[in-house]
């Protein structure tokens, strides 16, 4: 699994371009999350893809070739945090509810809704942690689940920020006309 973080232009069609690119490279996406940044013109993506290091390097380089992708960086080998958020609806009746609550507490989950025959758990953390909770909830009957997919951030002073203004590299000048 490889994790790529990208800053992209926050406008229609950009997600389509990113998805179209991964399809063309025959890379399967495990999860892709998009969210706003402090700059409303820029969105941040976390792409988790089933590929090897070379595939991730190609994906990263190809992503940055898209005009609307400002930065793409493979952070798989860097010190980083990864978080996934899940809402899980579990079958629960009066008998097993206390036992369930105990288990959920161990995983630092929160019960956010209780109904006569079910409850909803909210849990965030690493993928492994959520998978672990799911494992123990399954015998009770998992009725429904929604997961956000991973978001990731490198630790400490390892900053990954979008470029702020047009840089000299974007060569904002008209090209020379055809010389004929």
């Amino acid at each position: 699994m490889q994790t790529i973080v990208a800053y992209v232009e926050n406008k229609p069609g950009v997600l389509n371009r990113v998805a179209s690119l991964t399809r063309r490279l025959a890379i399967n996406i495990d999860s892709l999350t998009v969210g706003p940044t402090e700059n409303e013109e820029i969105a941040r993506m976390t792409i988790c893809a089933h590929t090897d290091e070379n595939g991730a390097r190609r994906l990263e380089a190809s992503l940055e070739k898209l005009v609307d992708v400002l930065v793409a960086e493979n952070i798989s080998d860097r010190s980083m945090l990864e978080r996934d958020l899940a809402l899980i609806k579990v079958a629960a009746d009066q008998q097993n509810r206390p036992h369930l609550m105990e288990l959920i507490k161990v995983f630092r989950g929160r019960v956010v809704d209780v109904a006569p025959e079910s409850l909803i758990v909210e849990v965030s953390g690493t993928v492994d942690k959520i998978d672990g909770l799911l494992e123990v909830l399954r015998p009770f009957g998992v009725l429904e689940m929604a997961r956000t997919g991973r978001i990731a951030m490198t630790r400490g002073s390892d900053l990954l920020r979008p470029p702020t203004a047009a840089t000299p590299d974007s060569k904002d000048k008209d090209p020379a006309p055809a010389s004929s």
Partner: protein
Amino acid sequence: MKLTGAQILCETLERLGVRHVFGYPGGAILPVYDAIGKSKLHHILVRHEQGATHMADGYARATGGVGVAMATSGPGATNMVTGIATAMLDSSPVVCITGQVSSKLLGSDAFQEVDITGITMPITKHNVVVSKVEDVAHTVREAFIIANSGRPGPVLVDITKDAQQATADFDWEATVPKLPPKRIRNNHDQKEFDRAVELLNSAKRPVILAGRGIILSGAMRIFEQFVRTSNIPVAMTLLGIGCFPATDPMNLGMMGMHGEAWVNTAIQEADLLIAVGMRFDDRVTGSLRTYARNARKIHIEVDRAEINKNVKVDAAIVGDAGETLANLLPHVHERDHAAWFAHIKELKGDSAVRDIQSLPDSGHLFAAHVINDLWKVTKGGAIVVTDVGQHQMWEAQYYHHDQPRTLITSGGLGTMGFALPAAVGAKFARPDSEVWVVVGDGGFQMTMCELATIVQEKLKINIAIINNGYLGMVRQWQEFFYDKRYIATPLVAPDFAALANAFGIRGERVTTRKEVVPMIESARSSDQAVLLDFRVEQEDSVYPMVPAGAALHEMIRRPNNPLVETASEP
């Protein structure tokens, strides 16, 4: 000053230095055509929108500037798809402008509505829908920058009809292009650079693999200096042809599937490959598993995504070919590769004897003769635009290009039907140059409608049809790999000379070798387009050939005896 979107488009194109637009009108682009009528732009009416994109592509390839194609919405736009993909695969700077239904109708399956930006997303460098008149000028300026910067490629701008009709203040200074703020990547990696220098200065059997990136970078002079200083022989990709004089003794010739045996063998025996502006296409490498296993590899390439894509390299320098070679040059020591050159000479061995040019005239007309004679008569000075197939490979083998941008051919996509329209673009780009179309009887029939465009525009283009009555390259594969089962490759064609007459240009049939030179000379001396229908050997094959998936040195060599079949009369 208030202008309509259509007028702003024309004004912007003019200010960007555009003089020629290749296109075809229709409902959703009519406002633009009305504005073209009042502009200084020369619009070339094509006969099919695919032709418009190939013309813009040929224009771009002949000059290095941006070529412009235009079409209406729906079928006009979808007809451009093949031409756009052709430009994409060969990194050609083309801007396509399409009309689109009015913005309020978008998504309603309106008449001639098609999601052309969705369709062309994977085959354009970038594309964009413009639905506001205020966005026309800066978007088109951005399209030109994107198309012709870094690794060039096609850009499509889809303009809704209401954006063409609405009016806005037009102020060139205020419409500055505003591209997204991309991060500057510092691609200079000193370790890789030092490693490349070390490899360059210690190799005993080096070969340079020269690609189109050198031509796109305009780096021919610095490349030649690099070759002379390092004293390393050059092998070229198909699209690299012209980046270094073909007649120079340092030039081994074209590599790959139909490269000469000594070129491919030298690559397989090399201890260092220096790849410049090329991408290790499968037609160049043969089987990757067995490709140049003795060689360390240096890759100089402007597109980071190409590094280690097909072939794992030992040193990669990401950057413009010219700049990189200039940086490397002071560190390169001249080395004596006498033993290596002697060995390559040995590899050539009996190749010259096997060469079809060395055979006495047997009364048969071979395509290789026609093309070699064309080279001799034109003294290598023509722009040759080829189609795709056997004749394309023979052209690469027997027309020796000493100048860049004199061979225009569809390499990556291998688009049949490319030649005739691309030649129209090339002729507009370089009106003083002699332009020859070399095309098969199959490919010619795909886009021969553009003969009418040639006549309407009064263009002096010479057309050489290499007519063997087959889809020759496919027939060759059937001969070699499918026990000569010629399924769907025998091809009926019209009498091309009579067809040319019907379009109002001269057409001649050539069936014997002795007629070839006089006919070429006669065509050259005419001030109008001339079509020559060369009836060549029907079952001739391109040699050498590396079968698909075989190792690069496992070639089917040229036979020692010429073919015996005679060119049949229809």
